[in-house]
């Protein structure tokens, strides 16, 4: 097995709201290996973005770590001083393309100016010094240097997303978290961006955490798949263990896959999971998926299933899988 670049142990991150603590990340553990892409999937609200911001050690307010560890290249980052995180970790070692970032570019500044500011914040330098770096990174994402002089509204969605990706790579991180990087784009542009990400990963020797709710997309990009439900990891395994002939182990993953349309294998109707994910302030006792599960039995309602290895390299948290 190759080197671990990131290790998460029993991590908890809750949002402290007036209604109580939203348990968005509730005791999760996993590792990311050098050069791999780990796909994080799950329905809306299951904690995918929260996982991403936690790994950067910048949960959005009112989020707070409630336990566990994040080790980045062996260093435990939760106890570190903010100054040291900024100096060595955030953006330099681990960076993130935020969900919807392409629509958050400042409309009044040129692309070049925005890229310069990001660069300057971490490595003070003159505009003149920055220009070749900006042009180089625009080149890496397949954009001509003139794009630096353009305003965001003059660019297509695909071009804006390329700019955001270039900015995330600026400080030469080794881990990049991509949060729904193609959800707002149409299929052709999505496929172009995915091809670009695969090339960049090779070229820069990156490791990716690829967040999306689209399982079909995960099948094309991720070496391993991490399925989240209600703040927990419910299945963690190799790509082929979900998308191969044997199919996934956890009933939730099974249902998600059945809800994923296949262009070339038409079915009469797509399955869906009735009901909605639980309230994370008061999650149900036992297995959190039990109220919606088609394989539920008595034990599920009282005892929470741990995430356990069910075959080599395949973890699942379900009483039916053990």
């Amino acid at each position: 097995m190759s080197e671990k670049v990131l290790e998460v142990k029993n991590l908890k991150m809750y949002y402290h709201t007036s209604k109580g603590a939203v348990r968005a990340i509730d005791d999760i553990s996993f590792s990311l290996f050098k050069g791999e892409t780990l796909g994080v999937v799950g329905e809306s609200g299951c904690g995918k973005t929260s996982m991403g911001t936690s790994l950067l050690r910048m949960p959005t307010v009112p989020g707070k770590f409630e336990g566990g560890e994040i080790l980045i290249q062996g260093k435990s980052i939760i106890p570190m001083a903010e100054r040291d995180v900024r100096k060595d970790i955030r953006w330099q070692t681990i960076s993130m393309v935020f969900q919807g970032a392409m629509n958050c570019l400042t409309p009044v500044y040129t692309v070049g100016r925005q890229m310069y500011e990001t660069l300057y914040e971490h490595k003070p330098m003159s505009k003149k010094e920055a220009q070749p770096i900006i042009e180089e990174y625009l080149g890496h994402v397949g954009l001509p240097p003139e794009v630096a002089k353009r305003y965001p509204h003059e660019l297509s969605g695909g071009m804006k997303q390329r700019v955001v990706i270039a900015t995330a790579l600026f400080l030469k991180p080794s881990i990049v978290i991509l949060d729904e990087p193609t959800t707002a784009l149409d299929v052709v542009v999505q496929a172009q961006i995915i091809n670009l990400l695969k090339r960049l990963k090779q070229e820069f020797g990156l490791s990716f955490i690829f967040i999306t709710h689209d399982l079909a997309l995960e099948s094309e990009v991720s070496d391993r798949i991490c399925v989240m439900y209600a703040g927990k990891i419910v299945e963690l395994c190799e790509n082929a263990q979900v998308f191969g002939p044997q199919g996934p182990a956890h009933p939730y993953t099974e249902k998600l896959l059945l809800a994923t349309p296949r262009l070339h294998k038409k079915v009469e109707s797509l399955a869906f999971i009735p009901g909605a994910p639980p309230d994370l302030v008061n999650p149900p006792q036992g297995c959190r998926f039990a109220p919606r599960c088609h394989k539920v039995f008595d034990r599920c309602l009282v005892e929470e299933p741990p995430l356990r290895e069910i075959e080599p390299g395949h973890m699942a948290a379900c009483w039916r899988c053990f």
Partner: protein
Amino acid sequence: MSTTTVQENDVILRVEGLKKHFVPHLSLVESLGKPKKIIKAVDGITFDIRRGEIFALIGESGSGKTTTGKLIMKLIDATDGRMVLDGEDVTTLDKPKLEEYRKKVQMIFQDPYASMNPRFKVRKVLEEPLSIHRIGTGYKDREPLIREALESVKLTPIEEFIERYPHMLSGGQRQRLATARTLILKPKLLVADEPVSMIDLSTRAEILAMMKDVQQSMGLTYLYITHDLSTARYFADRIAVMYLGRIVEIGPSDEVIDNPLHPYTKALIAAVPEPETGKVSVIKDLPIFGEIPSPANIPPGCRFHTRCPYAKDSCKEQVPELVDVGGGHLHACLRAHEI
């Protein structure tokens, strides 16, 4: 009469040579010395929507789908062309006729939350269209219709939902409410512009299933606008593929997906991810170049030639028209027979 021609009364909406050209607003300085570039968002489209079918309009961002939807909703006026609803020319309508038309043709918007008054409870959200169209005189009169609409989209138990505000509904439930609100006027044609594109997969499947149930039980006709081929195949009876303001291929859904004739359709299909293993280290071979050109600068000849891997010199000059290859399958490619 041959089997492929559709009888006139089977057609609910006929669109003929429809165009929408926008003249951009430039500031005085910007316009100095520059000829005004006309944006040809919709540039001559012709199709029939048949009674009781789901007709999908597919294409990349910027291909003109929403503009087509707005033309059909009569939210904007056509630059050229004709529309016929139920045998009646509806290209230009006076005010009372327009009101009548807006009852028959309803639209579900992409973001249902934005189109709802957040201070209205579900019952009021549903009562609003009835009062606008002066159906019934008070809540008592309208209640049966409201219940029927909630029932049809399965927002049940009704008592529980009718007193809620939109923010107390999940994304999927909100989309159900939006659907109920359009169904309550018993429209003939429902235009749904990307109704599920921002929603996660399971909820998306649930909403499409619900919409299809309602369509079948009420005998409705849908125009389903999307860039998502895989849901279109599962949801729609026929698919029209649009590129830069024109329709390049049209046919029964299975035909268009299994046997695509236009290089653009082939490229769209190649781009769709399939949930299968073994592709992680593969860079996808996309049979299409670059990005969609601006509709202010439409390439001559076949407008797809700048991105088409099969383009020949003749494609740069000759404008391909839709050709019928039988079985209601049409394409607009000069080289379809040889590729």
